[in-house]
């Protein structure tokens, strides 16, 4: 764009000199002005030439944004000739790339509205052939003195190539950065892996090695931790030919030597052998060896690792021992999980004895509840106790009736214990069941024998009591005879009224009944019968026994005092056996007080009811028992007396035991001894 200077002339005045000077001045200025105009023209042409030849395209827009200049370079860049586009307004031909139009319009608006006097825009333009060119536009506006827009000059540079280079450079840069990051990461990973490797090698018990395949398997590498594991230095192992093989236990050596993968790349072989450590101790080693192609000479190499498995081996041996023990014991061993909620635990293991005893197969048992062993005859009370134990986490021992697969029953002694983990939580239950059917039968047999023995003892007791009982029987018989003879005498002399006779005959009948009662008690006492339980009042039994023993007590000058409870003392028991116990205790007391002065021989029988039991106490006022007698008094055949077998108290104890009761003796504080038999109201679940 051109800028022209228009000078103005001042009017001349009076003073000629001044005017002359002024004219001269003006002439000079005019000349200078003309010269300047010439220079300016020349400069304008030069500029136009330069503009056409410079690499920047130059465009000039007038105040109406109509293209007025389109330089040759612009033609080269865009393809349009000046005559094709000059005179067109901005936007009249497809020049700005559609996607950049908004941005470029904004740039134009800013220039046209005077917001900016120059700006730069990087945008895409269309060429004449519709191809796209990246351009950088530098625009500036020319204003006149009043600030009015005269023209807009834009020069444009084809950025396509630059852009391409730039993109390539960016790409390259990014690639370099990526590569650098990658390398940093790789280096870090490598360092970390190295560190881990070092740590693991130093800390693990795994000794890593490589060795030759042929010959004596000389080691080519051994990790340093071999020193901690086996006590040898790595250099020693590597430098000593055949070191490794020589240290394998002779019995294991050949096997270890033979067991290597035949081809490189085959599955690794695992060998276990005993290896002599630096301490000369053989330890079990697990050796995992792989065959690989070596790098240079092509000969294969063995690489592998060794692990000290001595402890593991011991544990394994112990486990095998325990396993074989569990497999071979006669007791059934069942392990369940620890599920307590109904339906309860599941069987996860059972030993062969279990299957032998029950007839089940593992498939029928594993995963099922131990309830499969229960049946109608299994005591509910026991199952309740078992359940309570499971809930409370307590172990428990019970006797129970179990069912085999075929429905037959067997008696077991049953022991259940929790298995806890390190945290003390119950993780399993182990149940050991001993088949005690045979023992149970033996016990029943023993009970029968006991009963027979008790019967024999009763007979013997009865023999001892015979004279006393004969006397006791004589009393009513004598009374009857006396009454009858008295009546005869009176009848002979006619001194008796029918009323008197009737009264006396009533007494006779009473005495006959009395003798019958004595015989009944006696027969009952010596009766032989199977043990049986029935509800009976202990006080009645005491009365029966006192009736039997009263004559003997009288003969021996013994006074029997009764202190019987008024409460019902009813229990389920074997009446004869308990009577036998009371007889034995009474006779024992009689003997104990035989050395007392006549008139000072007293025996007291007390019965006491307690909430869960009835106590029978037989006390005497004899000399009491010595400590060693107290210890042995219930032993069979132990007696302090010259007569008698010494079985009475022993049998009594057996009887009380079979009733789940207790019998013990204590010396009284003052004098004499008290025997206490405690019979519990809750009897044994399975009656003898």
């Amino acid at each position, binding site marked *: 764009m051109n800028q022209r200077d228009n000078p103005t002339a001042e009017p001349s005045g009076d003073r000629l000199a001044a005017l002359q000077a002024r004219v001269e001045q003006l002439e000079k200025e005019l000349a200078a002005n003309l010269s300047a105009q010439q220079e300016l023209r020349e400069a304008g042409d030069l500029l136009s030439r330069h503009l056409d030849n410079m690499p920047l395209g130059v465009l000039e827009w007038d105040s109406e944004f109509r293209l007025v200049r389109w330089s040759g370079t612009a033609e080269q860049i865009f393809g349009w000739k000046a005559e094709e586009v000059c005179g067109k307004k901005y936007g009249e031909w497809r020049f700005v790339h559609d996607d950049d139009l908004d941005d470029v319009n904004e740039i134009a608006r800013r220039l046209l509205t005077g917001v900016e006097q120059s700006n730069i825009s990087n945008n895409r333009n269309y060429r004449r052939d519709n191809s796209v060119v990246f351009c950088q536009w530098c625009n500036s506006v020319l204003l006149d003195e009043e600030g009015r827009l005269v023209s807009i000059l834009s020069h444009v540079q084809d950025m396509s190539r630059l852009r391409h280079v730039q993109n390539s450079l960016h790409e390259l840069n990014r690639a370099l950065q990526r590569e650098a990051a990658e390398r940093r990461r790789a280096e870090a990973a490598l360092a970390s892996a190295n560190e881990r490797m070092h740590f693991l090698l130093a800390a693990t018990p795994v000794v890593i090695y490589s060795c030759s395949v042929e010959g004596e398997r000389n080691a080519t590498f051994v990790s340093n931790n071999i020193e901690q594991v086996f006590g040898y230095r790595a250099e020693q192992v590597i430098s000593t030919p055949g070191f490794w093989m020589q240290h394998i236990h002779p019995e294991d050596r050949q096997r270890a030597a033979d067991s290597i993968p035949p081809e490189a790349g085959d599955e690794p072989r695992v060998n276990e052998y005993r290896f002599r450590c630096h301490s000369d101790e053989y330890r079990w080693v697990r050796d995992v060896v792989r065959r690989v192609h070596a790098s240079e000479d092509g000969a294969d190499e063995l690489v592998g690792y060794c692990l000290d498995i001595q402890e593991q081996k011991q544990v394994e041996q112990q486990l095998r021992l325990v396993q074989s023990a569990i497999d071979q014991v006669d007791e059934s061993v069942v392990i369940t999980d620890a599920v307590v909620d109904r339906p309860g635990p599941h069987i996860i293991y059972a030993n062969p004895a279990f299957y032998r005893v029950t007839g089940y197969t593992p498939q029928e048992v594993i995963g099922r509840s131990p309830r499969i062993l229960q049946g109608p005859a299994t005591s509910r009370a026991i199952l309740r106790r078992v359940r309570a134990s499971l809930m409370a986490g307590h172990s428990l021992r019970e006797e129970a009736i179990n069912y085999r697969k075929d429905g037959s029953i067997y008696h077991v002694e049953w022991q259940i214990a929790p298995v806890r983990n390190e945290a003390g939580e119950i993780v399993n239950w182990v149940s050991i069941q001993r088949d005690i059917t045979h023992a149970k039968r033996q016990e029943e047999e023993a009970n029968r024998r006991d009963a027979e023995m008790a019967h024999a003892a009763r007979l013997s007791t009865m023999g001892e009591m015979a*004279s006393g009982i*004969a*006397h006791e029987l*004589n*009393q*009513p*018989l*004598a*009374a*009857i*005879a*006396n*009454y009858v*003879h*008295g*009546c*005869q*005498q*009176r009848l002979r*002399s006619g*001194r008796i009224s029918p009323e008197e006779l009737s009264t*006396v005959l009533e*007494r006779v009948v*009473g*005495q006959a009944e*009395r003798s019958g009662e004595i015989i009944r008690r006696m027969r009952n006492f010596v009766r032989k019968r199977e043990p049986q339980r029935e509800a009976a009042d202990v006080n009645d039994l005491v009365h029966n026994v006192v009736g039997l023993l009263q004559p003997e007590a*009288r*003969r021996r*000058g013994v*006074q029997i005092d009764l202190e019987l409870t008024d409460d019902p003392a009813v229990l389920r028991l074997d009446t004869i056996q308990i009577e036998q116990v009371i007889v034995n205790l009474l006779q024992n007391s009689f003997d104990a007080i035989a050395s007392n002065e*006549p*008139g000072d021989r007293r025996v007291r029988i007390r019965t006491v009811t307690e909430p869960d039991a009835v106590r029978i106490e037989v006390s005497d006022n004899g000399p009491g028992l010595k400590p060693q007698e107290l210890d042995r008094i219930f032993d069979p055949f132990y007696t302090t007396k010259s007569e008698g077998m010494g079985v009475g108290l022993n049998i009594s104890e057996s009887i009380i035991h079979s009733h789940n009761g207790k019998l013990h003796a204590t010396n009284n504080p003052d004098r004499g001894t008290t025997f206490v038999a405690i019979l519990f109201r809750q009897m044994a679940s399975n009656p003898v």
Partner: protein
Amino acid sequence: MVSTASPTVYVIDDDQAVRESLQWLIESVGLNVQTYENANALLQECEEIRSGCLVVDIRLPGMSGLDLQDRLQAEGCHLPVIIITGHGDVPVAIRAMKAGAFDFIEKPFSDQVLLDRIREALKEDENRRISSARAAEIEAKRKLLTPREVEVMDLVVRGRLNKQIAAELGLSHKTIEVHRAHVMDKMQAQSLAELVRMAVVLEQEEESAAVAPKLN
């Protein structure tokens, strides 16, 4: 001093039925009967016991029949004691006899045997009462003798001649004859034989009083 009160049979048995039936039986022959449950009950009434006999069961609680017998004799009660024993108590019964029991009867006994024994015992008691009364009479006469006369009487009843007695006592024959005449006179003896009988009665009485403690 023979008691004129009718004799009583004292029955001691702890078995009420036996006791009452014995009473029924013994009363049927017209005898008085007193029954006691045990020895102590009888001993409390011991003072009043004069004549009769005791029927005692050998097995009594507390004081036994044997003990009772001893106690009664110690207290001067000499009633005959019939011991009733049970089966197999014969050895004890023999001990009782040795200790002075009148008799023993084994249960079961026939009523007649018991009643006979009771009658015999009562007779014995009566006899003893009579002889004991006579002894007391003689003893009273003897108390009138001087010590020298007692000496002379002892020797006379042993069959010594007067001159033997004189030599033994260091006295003259004449003096002995005088003492002897005084003895016969004071003892109211009609003959030497009667004097001897009197001496025997006394001796027996002394013996019977001494025997029981000795055997105890």
